[in-house]
């Protein structure tokens, strides 16, 4: 029999608030940690590839070779840090990691261009970091192509038959920060919410107060929801704090509805706090609960939420596991609301899934928390 009496529910919630107010450690965890994490990771993580260190071996020494070198320098993507005379030094530069890419302009470069033959430029890339290598090669090809088009126009007055007019939506500067900060809000809130509640039931078992509580008419649902309410309020304040930091410190655009973000935050937090409560009820001791809380929130939050790695590229098993990670849904919402300005008309599946997650999570928490001693 699981009753839900508002008087008892409020008694539990009020007690939890009083305890929280006197517990500095929990207050720091609740308010300082999310802000610190956001600032730290917001500055530390970047997927932008700029200033790729480059060596240019110019064996031609002609006008055209200089122009090509300038094109690389002027692109803003490359930083020319070495200009060895011969090809002998190339191996050493790449071995040491001093440069990531080497461009070799052969002695025949200027002459070939002048006589209308196809001139070859060699690019040697350090492929050990595949991601940067791919991006460096892409930039190189684009720069070389652009240079070819210019030469073609200057020498023969011929234009390329096709040009692409690209326009980038949502994140016009292609700044990875704009992608990272809204994602971080989701990941950080999953960690904080999981940790916040993972201690609360375990602490009562440890201190013996749960035994007293268990001998009273208070129901499981009343304990679970009563403990949840104060943390839900804290979580909503945290989401607001993190969002404000994102907009004013990291200058991430916020284009969507505050109301939809608040509503989905509510569902997301209820589910994740419920997950923490399940852990707390099962662990029954604070140390174990903290460890389980870290494992259940930190790694999945960063790795399986789609924050670091796109879920579409994961093997099927991992992809199925991601459905259990609540940040997976919330991340889509924060990115969508921040960058695309979309709301429930697009993000309703995520919203529904988070509500489902919350109902199941809280139900599990009420079940996992037994009033009986063992």
């Amino acid at each position: 029999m699981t009753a839900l009496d508002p008087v008892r529910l409020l008694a539990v919630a009020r007690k939890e608030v009083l305890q929280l107010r006197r517990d500095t450690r929990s207050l720091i965890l609740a308010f300082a940690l999310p802000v610190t994490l956001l600032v730290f990771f917001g500055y530390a993580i970047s997927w932008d590839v700029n200033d790729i260190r480059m060596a240019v071996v110019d064996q031609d020494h002609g006008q055209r070779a200089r122009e090509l070198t300038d094109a690389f320098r002027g692109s803003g993507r490359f930083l020319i840090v070495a200009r060895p005379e011969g090809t002998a030094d190339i191996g050493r530069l790449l071995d040491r990691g001093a440069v990531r890419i080497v461009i070799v302009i052969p002695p025949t470069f200027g002459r070939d261009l002048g006589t209308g033959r196809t001139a070859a430029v060699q690019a040697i890339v350090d492929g050990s970091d595949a991601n940067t290598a791919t991006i460096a090669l892409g930039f190189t090809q684009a720069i070389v192509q652009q240079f070819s088009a210019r030469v073609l126009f200057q020498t023969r007055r011929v234009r390329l038959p096709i040009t692409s007019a690209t326009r980038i939506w949502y994140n016009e500067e292609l700044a990875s920060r704009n992608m990272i900060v809204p994602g971080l809000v989701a990941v950080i809130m999953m960690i904080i919410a999981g940790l916040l509640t993972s201690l609360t039931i375990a602490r009562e078992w440890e201190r013996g107060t749960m035994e007293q509580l268990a001998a009273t008419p208070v129901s499981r649902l009343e304990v679970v929801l009563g403990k949840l309410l104060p943390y839900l309020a804290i979580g909503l304040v945290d989401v607001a704090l993190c969002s404000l930091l994102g907009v004013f410190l990291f200058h991430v655009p916020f284009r969507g509805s505050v109301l939809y973000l608040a509503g989905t935050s509510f569902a997301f937090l209820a589910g994740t706090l419920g997950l923490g409560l399940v852990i707390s009820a099962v662990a029954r001791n604070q140390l174990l609960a903290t460890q389980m809380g870290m494992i259940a929130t930190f790694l999945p939050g960063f790795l399986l939420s789609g924050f670091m790695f796109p879920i579409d590229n994961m093997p099927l098993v991992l992809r199925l596991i991601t459905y259990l990670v609540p940040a997976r849904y919330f991340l889509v919402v924060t990115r969508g609301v921040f960058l695309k300005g979309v709301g429930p008309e697009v993000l309703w599946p995520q919203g529904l899934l988070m509500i489902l997650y919350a109902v199941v999570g809280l139900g599990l928490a009420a079940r996992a928390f037994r009033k009986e001693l063992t």
Partner: protein
Amino acid sequence: MSGTPRTRGGAGVDGAATPPGDRMVVVEELTRRFGAFTAVDRVSFDVGRGEVFGFLGPNGAGKTTTIKMLTALLRPTSGRATVAGFDLAREPEEIKRHIGYMSQLFSLYGDLTVAENIAFFAGIYGVPRGRRAERRDWVLEMAGLKDHGDRLTSELSLGWKQRLALGTAVLHEPPILFLDEPTSGVDPISRRAFWDLIYTLAARGTTVFVSTHYMEEAEYCNRLALMSRGRIIALDRPAGLRAAMPAPLIEIATDSGPRAVELLERAEGVIEAGLFGRAVHVTVRDADRARAELPRLLASAGIAVRGLEVVEPSLEDVFVALVHLADGGTAA
């Protein structure tokens, strides 16, 4: 077990019977096993309205396990019980509504103030809003904490904590109160004050079920169940228990108590020998023979006897003798 004494368990022994309608606790064959270990072994008894019913026994005898079953904190392995008229198996939540419980370890919130703890439990027990202030003042008054409502509970002395715990346990004026070793670790004066409170509650009709391992506290109970190794080995009024002492008790005054005990334990005709304060208490099969033989035995070992007399047994003597018999010792 062949040495089990005359069975004193079960309801209504020696005029202490309770009319059926007034039985606040009825326990039948209640058993709890933890794996292969039987913590409580087919225990049966009744407790009447307004009684102060004591559970006496050493640590590990099964007192706490029995109380946890009766407060619906622990599921019995077998057996039946009703508490305040509600069936333990079918209506555990109803039972929780009608009892007060104070566990062995202090279990109020140390990081809440006295008043906040009272307010919390008043909410949990559903004390009507209009009565809360009155009940709070009553608890503060009875616990002697009238001027300390704003103090953090963790700062209180143990005696005060226990009285506050008792107060919060009866906030909702339950008809029955379970106290599990409420006074362990508390100084004698606070202990006395605590028992005064128990009497006050009992006088107002509250049934009090209390466990203890203090013998002198057992004397305060209306009826007493002696527990050993999960079984009730005797149940009666304190006076009845004393009268039921299975064998005569002799007190020997001597300066070499420990050596005398060692010698007497192996002597013929002696059931049990033990130190009692500065004297030695010996239960024997035959008082007259012992009076004649024991001084000679001690003298031959060079132990001086300053006095020897048959005495009225204390509850401790009764308890020790009964445990000895229940464990298979030889009866008179």
